[in-house]
């Protein structure tokens, strides 16, 4: 066979492998809730929820270079929008998602506008301030009637529609999975195309980007908006899964967890969001099992360990490992 045919054959084999991988993943995700317990299904649903939230953060901080230490605030905004609509206005759970998305898109954009003036550390402070402000705002006396105050709002878990033979946890898992897939595909299209390149250009060489005609201000503010929207949708899904919202669930530690999860997963990647979500959900539990007395010390050790081993995040590490493996086995 000549060189061209070999190249085509290799590429075909590679694409086949990738396709097989995706099909396997699809089958696995559909089968999962039927082989694991309800409780674990709930946990995996939360991994997906956080993955969506982290995807929003990755978009903003990884691709666009705008650091945010306050994304927990948008998560809270989305969660409360969903909770208030479901509780006070009896809006069906699926209809709260567009509402949360809309509210957070606008909120993110409005925050992004003045934030244009801030760079690096100063932007970090502004977003940190946003994250810290959320709980007191949610507890504010005058808003008690709407937000339920410190007692929070209890949400009723949705039942599977059309009498499908799945339980509530399984239904919620599939619902979240479909939303996640749609959002991830959307993000992929956005970020791997012109928009993504513009964002990266703004991150790496802002002045050159402007000189080339990229409207930095609009892109940056819109990115803030879209990023907030993603995290807000995640917040709504999270509220439905947990069936409860309360102001102190959304404190600054949530925002910091998001940042940590993003970095650990790989902040400039889309797949990294899933790894980050898994980290946020599972590592604290593992740390508790290792040490009853000082579990968060173990968590801190995990954080530092991950950063030593994989400074670019899990995804970067996997890419390097995969490249190394393919090189070895190509011979």
């Amino acid at each position, binding site marked *: 066979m000549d060189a061209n045919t070999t190249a085509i054959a290799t590429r075909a084999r590679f694409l086949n492998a990738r396709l097989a991988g995706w099909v396997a993943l699809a089958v696995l995700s559909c089968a999962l809730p039927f082989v694991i317990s309800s409780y674990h299904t709930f946990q995996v649903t939360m991994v997906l929820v956080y993955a969506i939230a982290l995807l929003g953060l990755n978009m903003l*901080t990884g691709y666009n270079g705008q*650091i945010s230490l306050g994304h927990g605030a948008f998560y809270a905004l989305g969660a409360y929008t969903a909770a208030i609509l479901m509780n006070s206005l009896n809006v069906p759970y699926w209809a709260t998602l567009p509402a949360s998305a809309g509210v957070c898109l606008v909120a993110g954009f409005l925050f992004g506008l*003045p934030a244009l*003036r*801030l*760079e690096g*550390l*100063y932007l970090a*402070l*502004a977003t*940190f*301030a946003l994250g*810290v*402000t959320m709980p*007191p*705002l949610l*507890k*504010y*006396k005058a808003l008690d009637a709407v937000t339920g105050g410190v007692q929070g709002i209890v949400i009723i878990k949705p039942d599977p529609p059309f009498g499908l033979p799945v339980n509530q946890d399984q239904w919620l898992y599939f619902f979240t999975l479909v939303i996640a897939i749609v959002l991830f595909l959307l993000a992929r299209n956005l970020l791997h195309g012109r928009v993504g390149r513009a964002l990266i250009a703004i991150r790496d060489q802002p*002045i*050159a980007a402007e000189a080339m005609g990229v409207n930095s201000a609009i892109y940056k503010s819109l990115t803030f908006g879209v990023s907030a929207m993603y995290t807000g949708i995640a917040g709504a899904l999270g509220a439905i899964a947990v069936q409860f919202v309360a102001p102190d669930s959304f404190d*600054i530690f949530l925002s*910091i967890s998001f*940042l*940590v999860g*993003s*970095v*650990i997963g790989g*902040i400039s990647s889309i797949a990294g969001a899933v790894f980050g979500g898994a980290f946020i959900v599972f590592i604290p539990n593992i740390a508790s099992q290792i040490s009853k*007395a*000082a*579990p*968060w*010390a173990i*968590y*801190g*050790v*995990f*954080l*530092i360990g*991950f*950063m*030593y081993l994989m*400074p*670019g995040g899990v995804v970067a590490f996997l890419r390097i490992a995969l490249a190394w493996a393919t090189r070895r086995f190509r011979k």
Partner: protein
Amino acid sequence: MNIFWEQVGSGLVTGGIYASVALALVMIYQATHQVNFAQGEMAMFSTYIAWSMIHAGLPYWVAFVLTVLISFVGGVVIERVIIRPVENAPVLSVVVVFIGLLVIFNSLAGWIYTYTIKSFPSPFPSQPLFGFRYVSPHGIGAIGVTLVVLVLLYAFFRFTPLGLAMRAAAQNPASARLVGIRVGWMLALGWGLAAAVGAVAGMMVAPIVYLDPNMMSGVLLYAFAAALLGGIDSPGGAVLGGFIVGVLENLVGAYVIGNDLKLSLALVLIVGVLIVKPAGLFGKTLVTRV
């Protein structure tokens, strides 16, 4: 009118707390161009070390000096052992390491010392000086100590060769190496100094707020805001920023919007100032070459 001045006085005292931690933050920033989020927890841990010594019977000033020295060494060790491996990693990865340190110190303190609050003694007299009632004697003493540390640091960075070497290493490591500065050790030294300043801050703060593992968690945000308000590369700005934040927060809480939202409003005001003056009140505006 009395009450107004009492609020101002109490604001100066809390402002002094923020100022001293902000000073440590600026210190680390000047030496390493990184913001150490674990600064507060390290200061808290140093204060616990001091408490253990005092509890074991050592006189206050002996424990004070020993703690400062131990914290200095601890800071150097942390930089060399824990931060060095990620020196060349992306900024955010280093931030995650800082967060890891924060969580470790907090958890260890809770495990070793439990969460019951502990009294920490003050070296200053307890009777108001000259009947001045608006700020407690310890408050005045703590503010004084902060200012002394500030002056010492300023003198160190401005007038000593070592201080100059540290600033050079932070601003331009490559060139600094070319002139023979051992950049790695300058960074470690910066961490050591910041840890020592943090320990002093902790020991001044603890008599006011009582010592417990969560003593510094609230302070860090304010200190961060203060440091940025004053300009992250200006120690004097950080201290002034601390006092402004302390007094502002009290006055906003007492007269403008009530305690529920005073934090939010104070932060909005600070961010507002930063939007107008993006490098802080006394910071240097960076001019980048295109």
